[in-house]
């Protein structure tokens, strides 16, 4: 049997932005207040009166070439053979280099363990043969998880029938989380919105 390579497809047409995945992840992984392993981001595109609100599920992209693993000085961040990027909590020195390196902002310092942490694709569940908590709970079926090497898996079928994109493809990280029906300008839209917030928020300093 061919080696497994886990991946996820987020079909944003089916996402209603209910944050059920966020809550399921928090409950499953005991994620602290103020930090997230997954989250649904809202953003608006267009100008009035033609505006739309979109939802974008974000999580660790489990990149094929993960920058966080490359910069880790102690090999605490590593990539498993099946494609899941994990943190060895016992080796992490908390230098935060991986947080600076991740283009997706997926990492944070776990407030309890005081080491770098992130989405694990619910590795404990996957190894036991069940899907991640966020996939299990998604009410619209927007998150689909499976083996990218298996031609019969649902993720593979979706990717071979529908056009899918990844986030920030220009960085060459080759994410294993794919998005269906995300506008190509998503990066620019989210960035510009966030920059406006940033400039507005910090205005008093001027």
């Amino acid at each position, binding site marked *: 049997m061919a080696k497994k390579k886990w991946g996820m497809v987020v079909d944003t047409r089916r996402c209603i932005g209910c944050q059920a995945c966020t809550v399921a992840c928090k409950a499953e992984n005991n994620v602290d207040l103020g930090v997230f392993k997954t989250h649904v981001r809202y953003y608006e595109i267009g100008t009035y009166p033609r505006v739309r609100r979109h939802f974008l599920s974000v999580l660790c992209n489990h990149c094929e070439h993960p920058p966080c693993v490359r910069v880790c000085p102690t090999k605490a961040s590593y990539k498993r053979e099946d494609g899941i990027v994990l943190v060895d909590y016992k080796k992490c020195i908390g230098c935060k280099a991986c947080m*600076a390196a991740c283009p997706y902002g997926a990492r944070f310092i776990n407030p309890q363990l005081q080491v770098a942490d992130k989405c694990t694709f619910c590795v404990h569940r996957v190894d036991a043969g069940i899907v991640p908590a966020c996939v299990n709970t998604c009410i619209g079926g927007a998150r689909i998880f499976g083996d990218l090497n298996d031609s019969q898996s649902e993720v593979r079928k979706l990717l071979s029938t529908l056009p899918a994109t990844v986030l920030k493809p220009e960085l060459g990280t080759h994410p294993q989380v794919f998005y269906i029906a995300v506008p190509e300008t998503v990066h620019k839209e989210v960035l510009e919105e966030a920059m406006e917030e940033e400039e507005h928020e910090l205005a008093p300093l001027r």
Partner: protein
Amino acid sequence: MNLPLYGEGMNLPWGDLRLVIDLFLGGLGVGAFVTAVISSYFGEKYEKVSKIGAYIAPIVTTLGLIILLTEFTQPYRAFYPFRFTHITSIISWGTYLQTLFVISALIFALLLASKKKGKLQGIVGAMGLLLAVLVGLYHGAFLSVNEARPLWNQGLIPVLFLVSALLSGLAFIVFLTSFGPQREGVLSSLGRVLLSLLLVETLLILVYLFSFYTSSAEDLLAIRLLTSGNLSLIFWLGLIGIGLILPCLIGVSSVFGRKILSLSTASSLISILVLIGVFLFKFLIITAAQRMPLLGL
């Protein structure tokens, strides 16, 4: 800040001043050591300069490293990069480089203090010089490998950090020598080197800034964090005005123009301004790059 809701605040890895202070002190140590070694080649006239630099270097570098340790969430695991060395990680290299640099700076200072001039001092000095340059480059290199952060992911960043390290170390020594009695010509030649380095740094910062305007849309947004964001006042007035243009003007006018200020006043003034400028440069680069919002969590 609305950080819990959108999680942007959770991804400010080095959000406070500790890394800035560490890199500033580390750079100061590198610059002081380089000044000490190079001036030791110029004979007995520069002995005092050489000693000041050699004594300062290990102290400030160690101080910087201690402040860096507080940045780690698991400081007692700080030796792990030796145990689990990761060849692709610049920080892993940096752990070796900084340790070796502090050791050679310490040995060099002890050799100078014991007045044993000889082969050993030359070897340690030369080795330390190489390590100092590598550490200076490393201070920028570990930032510039992050392709996620446009303000850091520039080829010029390691060079800029090296030059500003040399600048700050030299400025600190010039500041200390500008008081009290001094040998004829020492301060003016140190001042000229400082001014030349300052002009190089100004040029490099200009090239760095302009390179963003020939780049992608994301880079254009990133540079706005410096030029028009909430950091713009510190950038324009602090770095460009007080840190670069003012000392350049004072320096150029006292070398080529009429001497309004005495040599020691001019050089102490320039060195303070340069130290402020280098600190602000490191602060701005480190802070602004982290304020760049990421797509994602």
